[in-house]
């Protein structure tokens, strides 16, 4: 079993050429778009946040309307740590991720119970509670005025943050990449496969030996850590934390990002973040007062048309193109189909 199972895992985990191109472009953006580093940094952070939601929603089928709870917790943890104790960013990231993971572990038991609607309400409730705590604890968080006076040291004592966001983008992108690689390994492991089995049917998964609740707790905790690190990146690169990090719209935005990009394949979160932020930027430039209208309209069209249908249409076109270039490949594919 081990040999063949390992072969499967290795095959699933193998990087495809398009992925190399994707990440090369992401890193090339550092030099290709020198005046867009600030928005690129926002995209990288939103992408990491979306990847964290994808782990629970796309793979384990756990819906959440309060993922900002972990994002915000990580942001405040990193901000407070920098302000009062250690201003080294990487230490802050690790601490914020660990703190958010603990919070995720503690609240995961709440989302194990009930159906999707219960989970939506519970996750929303947790975020609202944290938001109000942050608001009331103004002595610590700065309340509605936000956490002021966050100053970061150079990353590992070498890379200073600059006004143009170059270091910030590089830092966020490297963090996103490393955590993406880890998430990729996770979802391609037997544990990741069992999460998909749980998403398909938890009762059936349990009956064939998958420990459903422990696995959901595990992935929820990992997802919370990712969201916390995303929040910490925002706090460190903007050197400011406001109540906005715990706001409902942040949870809704990241869900929207995943709807746009597609859940359940990790890249969906990243592609969705790029599209969402670019469209938002474009619409905000064209119609600063009504950009939410257009975002809403795009969402409705996306959902009604079915993103899967669109992406499968693009994939079918790509396959047809490949088949045309390689005679025989198409025939082999068809033979494998039922």
């Amino acid at each position, binding site marked *: 079993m081990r040999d063949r199972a390992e072969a499967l895992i290795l095959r699933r985990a193998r990087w495809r050429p398009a992925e190399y191109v994707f990440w090369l472009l992401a890193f090339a953006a550092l030099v290709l778009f020198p005046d867009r580093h600030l928005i690129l940094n926002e995209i990288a952070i939103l992408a990491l946040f979306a990847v964290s939601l994808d782990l629970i929603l796309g793979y384990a089928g756990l819906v959440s309307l309060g993922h900002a709870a972990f994002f915000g917790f990580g942001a405040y943890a990193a901000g407070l740590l920098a302000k009062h104790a250690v201003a080294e960013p990487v230490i802050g990231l690790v601490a914020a991720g660990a703190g958010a993971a603990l919070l995720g572990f503690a609240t995961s038991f709440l989302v194990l119970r009930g159906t999707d609607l219960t989970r939506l309400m519970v996750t929303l409730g947790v975020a609202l509670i944290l938001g109000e705590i942050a608001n009331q604890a103004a002595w610590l968080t700065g309340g509605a005025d936000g956490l002021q006076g966050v100053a970061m040291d150079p990353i590992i004592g070498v890379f200073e943050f600059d006004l143009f966001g170059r270091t910030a983008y590089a830092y966020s992108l490297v963090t996103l990449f490393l955590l993406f690689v880890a998430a990729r390994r996770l979802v391609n492991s037997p544990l990741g496969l069992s999460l998909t089995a749980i998403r398909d049917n938890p009762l*059936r998964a349990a*009956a064939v030996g998958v420990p459903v609740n422990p696995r959901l707790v595990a992935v929820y905790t990992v997802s919370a850590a990712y969201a916390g690190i995303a929040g910490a990146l925002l706090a460190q690169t903007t050197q400011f934390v406001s109540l906005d990090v715990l706001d409902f719209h942040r949870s809704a935005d990241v869900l929207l990002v995943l709807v746009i990009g597609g859940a359940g394949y990790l890249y969906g979160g990243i592609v969705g973040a790029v599209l969402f932020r670019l469209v938002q930027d474009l619409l905000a430039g064209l119609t600063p007062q009504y950009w939410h209208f257009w975002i809403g309209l795009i969402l409705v069209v996306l959902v009604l048309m079915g993103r899967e249908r669109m992406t499968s249409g693009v994939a079918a076109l790509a396959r047809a193109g490949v088949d045309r270039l390689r005679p025989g490949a198409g025939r082999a594919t068809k033979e494998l189909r*039922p």
Partner: protein
Amino acid sequence: MPDLLAVENLSAGYGEAIVISEVSLRLRNGEALAVLGRNGTGKTTLLNSLIGVTRRFGGTIALDGRDLTQARPEQRAAAGFGWVPQERNIFRSLTVEENLTAVARPGPWDLSRIYRLFPRLEERRRNLGSQLSGGEQQMLAIARALVLNPRVLLLDEPTEGLAPIIVEELLRTLKRLVREEGLAAIVVEQHAHKVLAITDNAVILERGRIVHAAPSVELRSDSVALERHLGVARTAGGRRAAPSVSL
């Protein structure tokens, strides 16, 4: 030989409804038991109760001396129950190989052995569960139970809805698992003639209770019991015919 599976006075059902009452079963290593009965007599509920997805009202379940009465479904699967559900219920968004890898446990039943048993699955190993035919889904459901390296296979109407030629192939495979591999199995079937040839003993359920228990070979020739409990001994033309399966 000590009992591998011991079920004592098991009563279970769904919600407030008791579907099976005081069912007692014993199964030894390498023994196959047929559970027969008409529609709605509690056969599936019995298997569901063994894997722990029903509400238990009383009784005990022990596997290899270990009390599993209070165990959760995944603990029962880990203890040795390999469940093949009635609707196959494969994970549709995973490929054949992923379906197997997701639940596999260490043991003699590995992917290579599975593919030797079901060469068709190896051909289809990169196809999604949703792309398989009914027969292939059934093979995958059995294979998924086998990679758990179970002590007891629990098969719920494995031939239901399959083409006759696939049924023959599946029954041959089941016979091989039971007779040659020595796997203990409980096979729920509505069609007695299909299953009595590959099992050692049989019980018949009516209204959630065991009303008849006998060695399979005896029951095959007991046209009175078959007629009374299952209505299968008499053919449409009124001629008595002992059920037979050529495998």
